[in-house]
């Protein structure tokens, strides 16, 4: 297909082909019904046409078997579409276990991407080919939506919440990043390019990092600058709980409920600590609202994540009590 007469965008991720397959299937189904009805309508209109306004049609009033047939058959077909589409949907939103993590924030009108090793970029994103990448993002102002057409995925960026999309690029090249949720004046300018590189090239690109350290090390610096470490001491002797091995575990709150310690929870602990207070502690942690921006929060989260007594320790299901079974890697 030439560039001009493309009907589908490049299939640049593992999911793209799945989505397209489903798309073609629905096209097939709908084309069948569409053509069927159109052909019948035109055929009847021509076959039974008359210019005599006094002629009357045949006395037909209906047929129960037909009514049943054309309710039940479309219903069954739509159930097939529903099941298939839901399967694809879950695949699209359920990242595999080991992903390369990237943080992002949307603000009017740009996307800022933050790599774990510290490198940040605006409106461009570099990722390696053949490796699942998970982007965790939020918005600093209004709604946005992070959209990768060639990877067939998008999700709204919502202030106050983290969203994620994931993809595994299958070929090197450059593709569009769009903001798909209307966000004001330069909504159509909130676009960028994702560059998929060979892993080695990606490594080389990453090492072009001019100082600043990794995201986690930046978080560590913030952790002491903001005096978090005065309360959160790793042996648990501080006023706040030790954060070692915390990420991925579950936490009991004073009101009895149990929460998963994930990105959103840590973020919430930093910005609105009083809303969820850990059982056994006083609600003395101050809010850091206004003292740390979204990127700082992401750095802190990354630092908290890195606080593990043994490699892979905390996130391990056994200690964490999280549902153990990793979903089989359905992503081909």
């Amino acid at each position, binding site marked *: 297909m030439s560039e001009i007469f493309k009907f589908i965008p490049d299939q640049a991720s593992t999911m793209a082909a799945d989505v397209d397959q489903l798309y073609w299937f629905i096209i097939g189904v709908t084309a069948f019904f569409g053509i069927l009805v159109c052909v019948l309508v035109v055929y009847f209109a021509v076959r039974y046409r008359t210019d005599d306004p006094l*002629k009357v049609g045949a006395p037909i009033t209906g047929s129960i078997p037909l009514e049943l047939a054309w309710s039940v058959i479309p219903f069954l077909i739509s159930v097939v579409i529903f099941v298939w589409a839901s399967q694809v949907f879950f695949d699209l939103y359920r990242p595999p276990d080991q992903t390369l993590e990237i943080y992002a924030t949307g603000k009017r009108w740009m996307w800022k991407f933050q790599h774990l090793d510290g490198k940040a970029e605006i409106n461009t994103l570099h990722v390696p080919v053949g490796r699942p990448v998970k982007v965790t993002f939020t918005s600093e102002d209004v709604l946005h939506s992070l959209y990768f057409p060639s990877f067939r995925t998008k999700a709204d960026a919502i202030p106050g919440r983290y969203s994620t999309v994931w993809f595994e690029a299958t070929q090197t090249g450059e593709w569009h990043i769009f903001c798909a949720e209307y966000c004001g004046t330069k909504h159509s300018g909130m676009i960028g390019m994702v560059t998929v590189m060979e892993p080695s090239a990606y490594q080389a690109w990453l090492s072009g990092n001019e100082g600043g350290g990794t995201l986690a090390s930046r978080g560590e610096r913030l952790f002491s600058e903001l005096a978090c470490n005065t309360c959160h001491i790793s042996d648990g002797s501080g006023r706040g709980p030790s954060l070692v091995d915390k990420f991925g575990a579950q936490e009991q709150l004073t009101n009895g409920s149990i929460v998963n310690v994930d990105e959103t929870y840590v973020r919430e602990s930093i910005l609105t600590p009083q809303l969820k207070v850990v059982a056994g502690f006083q609600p003395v942690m101050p809010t850091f609202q206004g003292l740390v921006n979204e990127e700082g929060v992401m750095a802190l989260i990354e630092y908290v994540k890195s606080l593990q007594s043994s490699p892979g320790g905390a996130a391990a299901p056994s200690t964490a009590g999280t549902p153990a079974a990793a979903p089989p890697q359905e992503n081909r």
Partner: protein
Amino acid sequence: MEMTLAAPRVDYLNEKHTVASWLLTKDHKRIGIMYLVVVSLAFFVGGLFASLIRFELATPAGDLVTSDTYNKLFTMHGVAMVFFVLIPAVPAILGNFVLPLMLGAKDVAFPKINLLSWYVFVIGFLFTLYAMITGGVDTGWTFYTPYSSRASSTNVMMTGIGVFITGFSSILTGLNFMVTIHRMRAPGLTWFRLPLFVWAIYSTSLVQVLGTPVIAITVLALAVERGLGFGIFDPALGGDPVLFQHLFWFYSHPAVYIMILPPMGAISEVLACFSRKNIFGYSFVAFSSLAIAIFGFLVWAHHLFVAGISTYSALVFSFLTYAVAIPSAVKTFNWTATLYKGAIWLKAPMIWAICFLGLFLVGGLTGLFTAALGVDVHIHDTYFVVAHFHFIMVGGAIMGYFAGLHFWWPKMTGRMYSDAAAKVAAVIVFVGFNLTFGPQFILGYLGMPRRYHMYPEEFQVLNVLSSAGASILAVGYVLVAIYLIASLFNGEEAGDNPWHATGLEWTTQSPPLPHNFETQPVVTEGAYEYSKREIKVV
């Protein structure tokens, strides 16, 4: 049913002539005409914005208008077309005019409220127009928070007030029609003898009564948030912007059925009349209207699949969305079967109706794509969605409205328009329409997001096609306006029943008497007994 050939030519139009006799009328027929005037104006305004949108999008760069202006254009286009054209178009114009006639009633149940609805509608429209003229509004017709409440610096409040007020017009009309249908039917007119248009209007009214208050409260909540600084959806306070979307779509999805059900009803009338046949599966078509109205309330979050709702909830809503597609499928097949072995008379209303069938079909079937979770993630907020809803709203609802308008025009005005011109216009609109919105499906799947003022160059070819189509479309609509207006001045006398149709509205004179019927009609048989009856020729 006797024709009233020798009737004195006093009718609702020439009964009185003063301006006050129009502005203070309680006659449902005159009120229908008054809606026609305002809605046509709104359609012109909305069409003008649409034309500017398509002009701008002919090139990838933003060269015609600024980004801010563009954003206002599509917002005001959407607001005008949805709230001031499509929601009132068929119920308030055609419904007002023919519903009491079809029921054999002298008027609707509450004539003063009916007039009040019109005034409320006009006041809402004036507010919105004022908002448009004094700077416009740029939130998109969906008014999503926090953009609308905290960020936008345009006339959101004024537009919100306009929409809020218009909502009450919609509620009052729906309430009025429901009571009318329950309480004002002619002797012998049982539920299953009602024309299908009445069933459709009844279902629509149900949605209007149940759904519209929710948009009212949603807009109000937005207003206190924006105007008074309250926080109900404000993420800065811990509020959830997605809650706004839930509330908005709790109304606005059912509202799309407010837009499509009445045209569907009109189509049932036209197809039965010009096939000279009973509608195929009367009770299935009738009940599918009710089913659409009720199930329509169960699917709203299919607009939120990628907006941050839980995946499990998305499953529920996707499934329910497929369920609500079934009654529409039933209708489509029944319409098709109605044509079978009919005596098909291809007059202009029938041509419009056939075009409706084709375009509604495409619009409805592409709804199956957007309802499919895995596909919607990709096509949500792209031109695919834009194409989907224009096929259904312009290709479906507006076409259906035109089919109805052409069908009842001789009854409303007593004049006949040029049949040939009407057929030509239908074909031009059909062709122009497909050219405008067909390419947008491809654009959408290729990934072009909607509400984009500028776009990457590779999308230009398809956009140019679309803009070209829009010009053809505009020509088609202008043609309609020309021959319909011309018919008022030099149209032939239409006669009381030019289409040889069944239905009580055709038994009175054209234009009808001020109080509709000379004597109270009595009904003895079903709505579409063409095959049983000898129809009297004029």
